[in-house]
């Protein structure tokens, strides 16, 4: 057992940075606008630091693993946080109070997210989950004087606490059956003869699935998401939609592969049906939305459905579906952040977030309109953009796991999703604007948007490097599990 404290350096950095942000906010010497840049620098530095362990395979005790999988997510989360900090800079200064704390909490939540990916046993995972969730509860209700923000934050917190309880209950049942909280130990115990306790194990497993389903907002546990998304300040919505999904699936994937693969035949249909409902409902309800944040909320529910389908397609034999899930997760995060960055820029100019308010944007701010179109097309899975490649690989993996019907549902759901994305584009390109007055130019945000759009194209046209990274990350998760796959009947 190795207790090498230096393995956790990126998180020390983040913790220190959080304290720094709080202090900077306290002293108030620095303009609030620049705080965002300082925070982004910290998140980037942490992502860069995590690359030191690239290629390493070490564990911090039995609690956390520091390997490709962790590194993949450390980098992903670091980049998410950095982007969100940059998106926030203008918004937070204008619309929110207590700037230092905002960034501090944001940075702290990355630690929670990272440990969700790194955890090797259930309790660490649970604590990490709570660290992330609590940060997000506070952030969601950060617009203190805004009733919608309070309402959304409250709903988020109550349902989040409820789902945590379910998760914890499931965890307890699993512990009761297997007498361990370590993923590998659980897999060993489950692969053995369970006797009469199998039902209990399945109950625990489904409770864990339900708990995580709440966190990633899978239908039918999604009720909090649209309200929380709509109420939360815009950059926070972007953050929740990116990091809570990414971290939730980081934990979900690892848990399913390393701990519950022996029960694969039991949970695969369950997840497949959850995925079906999530894809269909998320995308169909999105069609009716009038508010861009709610639209993106439902669209992200739809995306969760694809990812769940990918998890349902996990198989003991290959790591194909796992790497496809990671790839799609990365593609989704990039496209989604790009979309939110554009929405935030527009909100900073006008304070409007209804879809019809986007009318004629192509004439008033061509760059933002184009970038938003690109990111929405990418979310819809149009060719050339990241979304097509990642979805294609994902659907291919799903079909390969003998779930062709599920892949067909996913394709159909994508078809529906194009409709509401095109509705937004219709407003921007086809409807006459209210005034022809050009909106200003927001250079720093434009820079970020440009980087994200370029990333969308890079992933869309040359996905091999990212795919390789995802494969390596996924194969490592499997190496731990592979030995037990042989044991399972």
């Amino acid at each position, binding site marked *: 057992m190795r207790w090498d404290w230096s393995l956790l350096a990126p998180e020390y950095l983040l913790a220190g940075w959080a*304290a720094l942000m709080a*202090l900077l906010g*306290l002293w108030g010497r620095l303009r609030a606008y620049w705080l965002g840049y300082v925070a982004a620098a910290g998140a980037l530095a942490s992502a860069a630091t995590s690359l030191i362990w690239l290629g390493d395979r070490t564990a911090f005790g039995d609690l956390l693993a520091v390997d490709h999988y962790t590194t993949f997510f450390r980098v992903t989360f670091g980049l998410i946080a950095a982007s969100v900090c940059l998106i926030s800079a203008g918004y937070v200064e204008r619309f929110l109070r207590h700037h230092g704390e905002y960034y501090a909490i944001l940075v702290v939540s990355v630690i929670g997210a990272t440990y969700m990916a790194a955890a090797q046993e259930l309790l660490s995972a649970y604590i990490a989950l709570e660290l992330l969730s609590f940060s997000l509860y506070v952030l969601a209700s950060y617009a203190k004087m805004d009733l919608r923000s309070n309402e959304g934050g409250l709903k988020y917190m109550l349902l989040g606490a409820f789902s945590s309880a379910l998760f914890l209950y499931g965890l307890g049942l699993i512990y*009761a*059956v297997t007498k361990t909280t370590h993923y590998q130990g659980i897999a060993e115990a489950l692969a053995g003869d369970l006797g*009469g*306790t199998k039902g*209990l194990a399945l109950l625990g497993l489904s409770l864990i699935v339900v708990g995580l389903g709440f966190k990633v907002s899978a239908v039918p546990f999604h009720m909090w998401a649209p309200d929380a998304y709509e109420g939360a300040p815009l950059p926070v919505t972007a953050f929740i939609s990116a990091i809570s999904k990414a971290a939730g699936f980081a934990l979900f994937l690892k848990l399913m592969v390393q701990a519950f693969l022996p029960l694969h035949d039991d949970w695969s249909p369950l997840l497949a049906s959850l995925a079906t409902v999530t894809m269909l409902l998320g995308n169909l309800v999105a069609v009716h939305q009038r508010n861009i944040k709610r639209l993106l909320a439902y669209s992200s529910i739809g995306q969760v459905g694809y990812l769940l389908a990918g998890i349902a397609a996990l198989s003991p034999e290959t790591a194909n579906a796992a790497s496809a899930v990671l790839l799609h997760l990365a593609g989704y995060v990039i496209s989604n952040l790009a979309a939110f960055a554009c929405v935030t820029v527009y909100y900073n100019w006008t304070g409007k977030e209804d879809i019809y308010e986007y009318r004629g944007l192509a004439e008033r701010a061509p760059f933002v309109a184009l970038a938003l179109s690109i990111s929405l097309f990418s979310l819809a899975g149009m060719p050339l953009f990241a979304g097509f490649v990642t979805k294609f690989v994902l659907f291919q993996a799903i079909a390969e796991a003998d779930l062709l019907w599920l892949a067909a549902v996913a394709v159909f759901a994508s078809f529906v999703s194009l409709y509401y994305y095109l509705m937004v584009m219709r407003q921007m390109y086809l409807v006459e604007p209210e005034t022809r007055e050009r909106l200003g130019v927001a250079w720093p945000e434009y820079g970020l948007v440009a980087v994200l759009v370029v990333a969308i194209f890079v992933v869309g046209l040359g996905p091999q490097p990212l795919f390789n990274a995802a494969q390596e990350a996924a194969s490592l998760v499997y190496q731990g599990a592979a030995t037990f796959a042989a044991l399972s009947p």
Partner: protein
Amino acid sequence: MVAELFQQYVGVVVATVAGFVLVGAALFANRLLAPRQATRAKGLTYECGMLPIGRGRLQIHFRYYLFAILFLVFDIEAVFLFPWALSFLDVGAMAFYEMLLFIIALGFGLYYAWRKGVLQWR
């Protein structure tokens, strides 16, 4: 195995049920036996025998909550400190640094709260 696990709880269940029954029985007996006569004085708020001042609904200043939370933080610190003190010798120097870090973190929080003006009664 699980059945055994649950068998141990039978006692708890019995005790719980018995508790509810006993308390319920006592209240019910009280209801049956005691004389009932409502007077105005009986409906008044009890304030150590004096006549009540002001109205029944009392607003507590919001600042108390902040103090309460701050107090809670140090309460938790105490909860950690006692077991730490007991196992301090076994764990060795590491324990000292860990607790130091913990207290510094708490101290940072206190400093932050102080500077934010939580400790001032305005």
